[in-house]
């Protein structure tokens, strides 16, 4: 029995972390957030590390690793608040497109193609949104689709069928959110040409499950970063002639954050491991993992900001990028209440 990262996994972690430390400084994040830059250079760098190819099978041009490795990367991207289309293009799209559009999958692996994800309406349609299909044409509206720079979108209709559309077959409008480290858009379908990928809702669910695990891992990393920043700030900042880290109120805030987040690491590992190896446990574990980590993440985001005092509230230290990232992850692909409702349904505890 071994429930921990292998040597290879630790190596992967180190090399991605090194790249992000060098290339994705807070300054870089700020430039992307201010739209002075897009995420393409970062994605190019990650492509050279093999990240878009990570979970794509070797015979399709990929690296052939699994969900645990993907979670390791997602956690690091969250830790560095990295702008990138990782979750949509490198993870959810290849899972859904494997065996259906292997040509595109190979292009994703090579970094020459980005596929966005428009699943929101199949999970819980909001406002006037909703997507329907007829004769391989899509109509309706999808909100908060991931990645404004994608070449294609994988769209789930209201009844969870998967279609692929090219970016120029739809009208695409930027949707501003609190989180400026990742882009989302409104997709307007008007009898738009689309290719049917699957009518099997299990295909939709497999892509959704791994996306949810990745968002949970992203929050784990973002939360860890916020705790690290809070603890190190507290050790430096002095008030009443002593470091605020020696005030018990501050220590206890930090201890509560650590006590909440530490089990989340095991939870992400387990959920990712289950995704590849324990099919009967996957969905329930995934729902709980994303729901639970979203709750802990919310607490960490608030509390670590408080530890910084006024500095936490300003733009100066940039802590808010992580705060917003955690907020974004919480709502995307299912909020905690919705996930817990699904968890109850999966166990026959809700209709």
């Amino acid at each position, binding site marked *: *029995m*071994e*429930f*921990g*990262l*292998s040597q290879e996994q630790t190596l992967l972690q180190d090399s991605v972390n090194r790249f992000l430390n060098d290339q994705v400084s807070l300054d870089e994040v700020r430039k992307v957030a201010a739209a002075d830059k897009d995420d393409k250079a970062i994605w190019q760098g990650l492509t050279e590390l093999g990240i878009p190819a990570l979970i794509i099978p070797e015979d399709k041009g990929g690296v052939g690793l699994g969900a*645990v490795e993907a979670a390791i990367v997602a956690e690091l991207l969250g830790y560095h608040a990295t702008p990138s289309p990782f979750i949509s293009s490198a993870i959810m799209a290849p899972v859904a497109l494997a065996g259906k559009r292997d040509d595109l999958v190979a292009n994703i692996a090579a970094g020459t193609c980005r596929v966005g994800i428009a699943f929101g309406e199949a999970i819980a349609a909001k406002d006037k949104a909703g997507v329907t299909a007829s004769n391989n044409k899509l109509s309706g509206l999808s909100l908060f689709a991931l990645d404004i720079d994608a070449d294609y979108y994988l769209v789930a209709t209201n009844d969870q069928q998967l279609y692929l559309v090219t970016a120029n077959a739809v009208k695409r409008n930027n949707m501003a959110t609190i989180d400026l480290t990742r882009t989302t858009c409104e997709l307007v379908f008007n009898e738009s040409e689309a290719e049917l990928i699957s009518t099997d809702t299990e295909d939709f669910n497999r892509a959704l499950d791994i996306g949810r695990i990745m968002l949970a891992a992203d929050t784990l990393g973002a939360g860890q970063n916020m705790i690290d920043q809070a*603890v190190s700030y*507290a*050790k430096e900042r002095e008030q009443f002639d*002593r*470091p605020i*880290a*020696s005030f*018990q109120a*501050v*220590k*206890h805030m*930090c*201890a*509560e954050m*650590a*006590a*909440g987040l*530490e*089990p*989340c*690491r*095991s*939870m992400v*590992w*387990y959920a990712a*491991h289950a995704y590849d*190896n324990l099919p009967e446990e996957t969905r329930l*574990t995934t729902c*709980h*993992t994303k*729901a*639970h980590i979203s*709750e802990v993440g919310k607490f960490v985001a608030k509390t670590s900001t408080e530890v910084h005092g006024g500095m936490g509230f300003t733009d100066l230290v940039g802590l808010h990028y992580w705060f917003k990232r955690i907020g974004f992850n919480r709502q995307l692909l299912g909020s905690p*209440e919705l996930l*817990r*409702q699904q*968890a*109850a349904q999966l166990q026959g*505890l*809700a*209709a």
Partner: protein
Amino acid sequence: MDLSFGSEYETFRTEVRDFITNNRENAPSSRSNPADAKQWQKTLIENGYTARTIPEAYGGFGAKPDIIRSRIIAEEFADSGIQGGMGGQGISMLVPTLLEVGSEAQKLEFVKPTIEGDMVWCQGYSEPGAGSDLASLRTNAVMDGDDWVINGQKIWTSTAHLADWIFCLVRTEPDAKKHHGISFLLFSMDTPGIEIRPLVDMTGVANFNEVFFTDVRVPAHQIVGNRGQGWQVANAILSHERDMLGNPDAALSRFNSLIDLMQKETIAGEKAINHPVFRDRLMQLQGRIMAMRFNDMRILSSRLNEGQDASLARMIVKLQGTELRHDLEGLAIDVLGELGLAYGDNDYTRNNGTWQSQYMYQLGLIIGGGTSQIQKNIISERGLEMPREPRPAQ
């Protein structure tokens, strides 16, 4: 990542299950008499399902230490809902300590009767002036001839009124620094000069006590470790105690009872489980339990595999686990509403009134064994390396 224990262990798991199936009817319930409970304990020891790694010479089963087998036994007994090995402070705290630091004579004298349930112990640590700051304890022992002579008072001593013996911290080196002046003594509760006054706790039961010592004479050799080393000896026990508190397996088994309850109980004619707010709270707890179970797996794995660090994962268990249990019991009470208030000898209680008694008891565990606040001090100072509180100038 490899979560399987392997085929050898799965065979072992089948053996445990078969044992449980075949012996179910002999297992005592909370209402059985003490003789049945002791008989069951003997059967468990003979089969290696408790006191498993304690050497045969001291009355145990004598198996090689194997964390996975111990884990499988714990899982299967928790799952089946039947009574596993006896607990209590003697078995779960004193015995491991004696095995680590006790003399050969002490192991031979005390381990066997303790694990067989014939010798019941209480833990005499806390004093009116020494709770979280345990090392400031003042009960003292002075050497007189071949005896220690003890004077002072303990408080919150659980089961002192039922105990045959006590393991007790006393100050023997009044001139040494506070952590270095303490010794760890064992003595019979029948020794002249001991007075026990019961204290009723919030559950309505007098389970803990004040214990007064007036010129209590204890033979010099009844010390564990050397003079002045009592603090180290006690800390070996505290880590065993903390591992026991906050155990996620116990939370899981209570959670399963809670699901049953919510599927049976109705609120205005509608099943409680169909009430969306209660159901959401139930699912939140399930998520927290899951997180703690996976955290536990990581701790187990770090013991099996060199180089895995799970120290922070371990440090948070008592804090998170006891708070979780308290919340879990509290949800059952909220689900029951006014029925949740029924207590004592009352036809309307559910699960023998355990939701209320556990709700309160778990609060006792949040306080006992190092309060939640002390746990947070430990997590921040040792886990996050934040500075200690400066001491006020003398």
